[in-house]
């Protein structure tokens, strides 16, 4: 028995006037995944969520949930439930009434309803607050009510719109772990939208990165970070030093990257089958090794060795973020701090990285 995707988007396109909110998006999400839709604001990720919930209808393409074509199915008839960014807790109902609402609409008999409401409240650790009114709750508690209210309906997929954005920083951190834990407990597929890459990387089992209505890349968090498919993804997920240049084949058959931005010929490990042509090279700031002093003469194994001067240092506690001027280019370097040592602004330094730490991008 092959696993059927719980969500399948097939060439979904949605326009709002002149703006293309979704452009031929095809995506499938498997049962039990904690899936993140990640992208900057205005990239169309919330539109995709609203298309799944049924609040919007695609101009082209198909949406299948649990194998069923959703075209023409209104939101109240879809096997998905949503946690809204504003939580949208009904202000004139108590916490328990909020959670019971969806069951009442479905005419679930009262004894079962009570039992399931209690279960749902226990799940989000609100068992003692059933009688409270929403205005007596904190933001975090309101979010739990919204979660319980959606989960009590036992949806096939739970949709979460920026679930943590309205919480303060400390609570957000705690809720990340709790949401992931909750997802494992209930086993329901979670699909959440966020603009916060850290949040997506920390919680999701798989992420889709969106840009201007299109999917840039769909991958596990670690692959997104280590093997981004485009400059957009490389820059959006974490920080990156990008060099524009060309790939050329050297006499010995190895590939070299030549960039006018840094006057150095950089040997590239042939990790993928790549050819000659315009390309970009990306290196993460933490992959760059920094040594104080003048660069030693003579080639090393990877051939990457750049001399420069420190232009700026931001102390971040365990790490320091440095800006190093190499020729006209400034590179970002992340360096672990040790007590009593480290370069100062204006110091001459040299940079190097392992060949496998750099990757080549074609778009």
């Amino acid at each position, binding site marked *: 028995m092959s696993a059927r995707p719980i969500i399948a988007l097939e060439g979904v396109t949605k326009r709002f006037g002149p703006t293309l909110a979704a452009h031929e998006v095809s995506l499938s999400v498997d049962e039990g995944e904690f899936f993140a839709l990640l992208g900057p604001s205005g990239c169309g990720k919330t539109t995709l969520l609203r298309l799944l919930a049924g609040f919007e209808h695609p101009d082209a393409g198909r949406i299948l949930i649990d194998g069923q074509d959703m075209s023409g199915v209104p939101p*109240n008839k879809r096997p998905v439930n949503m946690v809204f960014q504003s939580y949208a807790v009904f202000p004139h109902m108590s916490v328990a009434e909020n959670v019971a609402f*969806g069951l009442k609409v479905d005419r679930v008999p009262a004894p079962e309803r009570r039992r399931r409401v209690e279960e749902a409240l226990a799940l989000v650790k609100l068992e003692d607050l059933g009688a409270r009114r929403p*205005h007596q709750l904190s933001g975090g508690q309101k979010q739990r009510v919204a979660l319980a209210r959606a989960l009590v309906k036992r949806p096939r997929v739970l949709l979460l719109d920026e679930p943590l954005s309205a919480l303060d920083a400390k609570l957000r951190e705690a809720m990340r772990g709790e949401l992931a834990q909750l997802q494992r407990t209930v086993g329901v597929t979670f699909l959440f939208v966020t603009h916060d890459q850290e949040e997506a990387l920390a919680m999701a089992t798989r992420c889709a990165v969106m840009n201007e209505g299109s999917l840039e890349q769909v991958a596990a968090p670690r692959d997104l970070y280590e093997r981004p498919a485009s400059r957009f993804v490389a820059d959006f997920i974490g920080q990156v030093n990008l060099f524009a240049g060309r790939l050329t084949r050297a006499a010995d058959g190895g590939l070299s990257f030549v960039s006018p931005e840094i006057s150095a010929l950089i040997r590239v490990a042939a990790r993928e089958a790549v050819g000659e042509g315009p390309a970009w090279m990306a290196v993460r700031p933490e992959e760059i090794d920094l040594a104080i002093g003048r660069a030693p003469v003579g080639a090393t194994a990877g051939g990457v060795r750049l001399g420069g001067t420190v232009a700026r240092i931001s102390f971040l506690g365990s790490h320091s973020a440095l800006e190093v001027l190499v020729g006209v280019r400034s590179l970002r370097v992340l360096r672990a701090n040790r007590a009593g040592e480290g370069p100062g602004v204006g110091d001459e330094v040299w940079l190097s990285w392992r060949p496998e730490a750099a990757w080549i991008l074609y778009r």
Partner: protein
Amino acid sequence: MTRRSTPGALDYLARAPLRLWLLATAVFLYAPLLTLILFSFNDSRRNIIWRGFTLKYYRLALTDSDLVAALGNSLTIALISTLMSLVLGALTALALWRFRFPGKTALEGALALPIVVPEICMGVAMLVFFSKVVPWPTEAPWPFNLGAIIISHISFSFSFVAVIVRARLQSFDPDLEAAARDLGAGTGRVFTSVLAPHMAPGLIAGALLAFTLSLDDFVITFFTSGPDTTTFPVKVYSMVRFSVSPEVNAASTLLMGLTVAVAAVAVWLGGARATSVALAGEGHGP
């Protein structure tokens, strides 16, 4: 020698000139009303000298069959016109809030018209309308003979209801509706369990306004009432034309008491709501 420190924002009421001003305002506003109430208990035909306490004129007012009939008419008109303008006003507000349609701006403007048009013009317009265009059968059995007045009252008070409810709807979070839909509610369910509770404070405020506007309307009613369809304010006016008798005072006091009671009930009803809504940090109660 100690100098008095400068008063804080709320201390200003503690200063003598301001207290005096407050007192003067209160006297200016309430002295006439107090005089009216006081002299309704005065044991004298004339309203000038205090001759001792009596309830005689209340008895007289309540046994005056014309006056009682007029009060009955007024309450009937107020009740029916309030209910009708509540329904019409709420539906108009919902339509304006929810939909886009041709002529929407014109309708919004037209809605404010009964509020700004001078009452005398409305009165004359109603007179012409009901005598020339749609003659209302004034011989119809009660309460159908009140139809013309009821319609006139609805025509101005439903605007107030619509404007108030519209303002209330402005603070409605559309996510609440989406959430209800998402949890399985159909259109009817969304209205009864999410939208209507949000509208409630506006409906209460609108009903209160419509009721009191109808109850004490004189000008428009004067033009639309016939000999058998006198309302309380019109009746009081015709009594005053001869002399301000203590009987009129007593009747007016009763009406005032009734209005205040209605307002108090509405504030109490809406107050509990408004407090909880205000605490939730959204919207505005009545």
